[in-house]
């Protein structure tokens, strides 16, 4: 014990840091901030440290070469002792990191913590969010598998749409004319040096600002922020009703951080590492690339936007979002902090959450993508074949053979790209069916060049039988009035 004190004194004689460290730890914070609502920032920091440590551990084995990266992940997964677990920790850590950063941001927004004088803290926080997302995207690339390869293709295609500079940006992004070794190497440099370095610097700045300006007090409805009086009010609050950060407020942070680490470890243990999926060989095209979880919403947006709006939305949307986030503390730097008095803020959060949730959910089953093997893998339901004429059954064959099933579901099975056809005979007369099949339209390709008259006749005969019991198929009223021959 005496030895420890001696050692401590020896260091402090030279460093002279004991007093400032103690003062920092014991700085007074408003009593009510010792709350479970205030634990997300420290949790994000904890997960960041976990990511640094596991990232360095992975770098001991990972080979950042286009020809070797995928194999080195297999080695990590299957040969290195507990390599799979470190990969799983890093992968789940990344998901938890994004989730916690987003929750932290929502809490800060709803508690009005971005208002005067903490504008810069918020702006640095926005930057940290961007860097975190940058880590997620570049990390997905380092898992150099099929999804990474085609994800890079999507990134390049999006960048190429920038006016004038697009082609140059694509080459800069890929490090050459195509996705290859140079691409992986530069994403490795970004993921391992550039972005983590910036993250460490800006996390430091973020923390420094929190210490200098003090943690945001618990917002009370009616307690309004004014530039002229806020600072003295805050100091009055911490003086009268403050507790030292250590040990007064830190306990919940510690418990929550430990709980999060435990959750990450549990997920890693139970679910295991992410991928890698198939090897990054572009000649294997039997693949349906999907982005990682936190970019799924973007995948859905890119499918659902009308084509003409896509490029403007992709290029202008992020700029607008960024401008809104960065300028938020400037057009709303004063006034009410409490979410109880800020209905628009609450509605904004709800709207964004519902939108992101819906898009993510949709991307989970991607109704806009044809089901590539439905034509050969999903038979036509038996009830649509029973008691049908030979011609109608021939039509069912045409339906399968021409891959109609890839986009059209029958009894809920098959593609969702086009409408379900279980009731199509109620909606379209046979003439309308012929026209739709031959000419296409409404986002359906025209099959005129690909069906001979016999096939068309059979197909339409089959489609004409698709109506529910108790309903009658659509008929052309004008024909009924015509003179019967």
């Amino acid at each position: 014990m005496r030895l420890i004190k001696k050692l401590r004194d020896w260091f402090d004689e030279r460093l002279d840091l004991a007093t400032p460290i103690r003062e920092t730890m014991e700085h007074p914070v408003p009593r009510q901030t010792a709350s479970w609502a205030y634990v997300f920032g420290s949790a994000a920091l904890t997960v960041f440290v976990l990511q640094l440590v596991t990232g360095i551990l992975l770098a001991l084995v990972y080979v950042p070469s286009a020809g070797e990266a995928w194999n080195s992940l297999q080695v990590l997964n299957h040969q290195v002792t507990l390599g799979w677990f470190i990969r799983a920790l890093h992968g789940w850590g990344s998901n938890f990191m994004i989730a916690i950063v987003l929750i932290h941001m929502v809490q800060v927004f709803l508690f009005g913590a971005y208002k005067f004088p903490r504008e810069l803290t918020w702006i640095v926080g926005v930057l940290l969010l961007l860097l975190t997302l940058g880590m997620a995207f570049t990390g997905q690339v380092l898992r150099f598998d099929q999804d990474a390869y085609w994800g890079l293709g999507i990134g390049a295609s999006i960048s190429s749409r920038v006016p004038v500079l697009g082609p140059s940006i694509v080459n800069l992004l890929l490090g050459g004319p195509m996705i290859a070794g140079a691409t992986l190497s530069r994403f490795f440099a970004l993921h391992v040096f550039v972005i983590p370095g910036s993250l460490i610097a800006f996390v430091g700045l973020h923390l420094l600002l929190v210490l200098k300006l003090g943690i945001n007090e618990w917002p009370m409805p009616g307690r309004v922020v004014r530039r002229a009086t806020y600072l003295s009010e805050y100091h009055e609050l911490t003086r009268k009703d403050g507790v030292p950060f250590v040990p007064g407020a830190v306990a919940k942070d510690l418990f929550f951080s430990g709980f999060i680490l435990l959750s990450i470890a549990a997920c890693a243990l139970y679910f295991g590492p992410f991928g890698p999926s198939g090897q990054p060989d572009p000649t294997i095209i039997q693949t349906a690339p999907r982005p990682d979880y936190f970019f799924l919403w973007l995948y859905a947006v890119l499918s659902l936007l009308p084509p003409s709006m896509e490029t403007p939305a992709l290029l202008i949307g992020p700029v607008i979002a960024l401008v809104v986030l960065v300028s938020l503390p400037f057009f709303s730097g004063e006034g009410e902090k409490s979410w109880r008095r800020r209905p628009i803020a609450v509605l904004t959060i709800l709207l964004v959450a519902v939108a992101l949730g819906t898009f993510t959910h949709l991307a989970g089953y991607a109704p806009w993508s044809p089901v590539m093997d439905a034509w050969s893998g999903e038979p036509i339901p038996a009830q649509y074949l029973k008691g049908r004429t030979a011609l109608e059954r021939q039509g069912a064959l045409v339906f399968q053979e021409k891959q109609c099933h890839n986009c059209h579901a029958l009894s809920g099975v098959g593609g969702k790209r086009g409408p379900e056809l279980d009731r199509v005979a109620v909606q379209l007369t046979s003439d309308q069916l012929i026209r739709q099949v031959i000419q296409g339209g409404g986002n359906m390709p025209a099959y005129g060049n690909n069906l001979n008259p016999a096939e068309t006749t059979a197909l339409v005969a089959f489609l004409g039988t698709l109506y529910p019991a108790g309903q009658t198929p659509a008929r052309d009223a004008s024909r009924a009035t015509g003179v019967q021959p």
Partner: protein
Amino acid sequence: MTQPDELSRRGMLMKLGLLFNAAVGTILAVPIMRYVLSPMIRERNAGQDPWVALGLLDKFPPGQTRFATYRHPSANPSDGETANIPCWVRHVDGEKFQVFAINCAHLGCPVRWFPQSGLFMCPCHGGVYYQDGSRASGPPERGLFEYRYKVEQGKLLIQAGEMPTTGVPTASLTNISVKRPPCA
């Protein structure tokens, strides 16, 4: 020597020092920036991309569309299998071909050919193209990208350049904008 004099002299020296470092920094920045931006500065000459062979003509029967791959001409050994680039070859008839890039004109995913329905379909966002590469439906705003090709000594050659993307109407790839009559 008076106090303010000395101060200004030191100030002057410091400014000179800063200036010196700024000059050295600028000189160093030129090669550094050229290194960083080298993938962008690379020559992008129309029709200068190298020709690569896709194989003998009898690999591509007339009237059919077949899968083909080539090794990218600028590949390094460390690129591994990523430098094996796929494409679709449609042999129209005689010496008339169409060689399509694998990348969907929407966001670059690999399109698949379905000979039964005569369509290319994309697994990502549902882009569909007819057999001649023109757009059939879905989010793409144009047809598939096409390579320039030539037939020499019984072999089919294409001009291989960069990965085609919407914003890069690259030299070796041409735009397909076949306007189909509504009843075609």
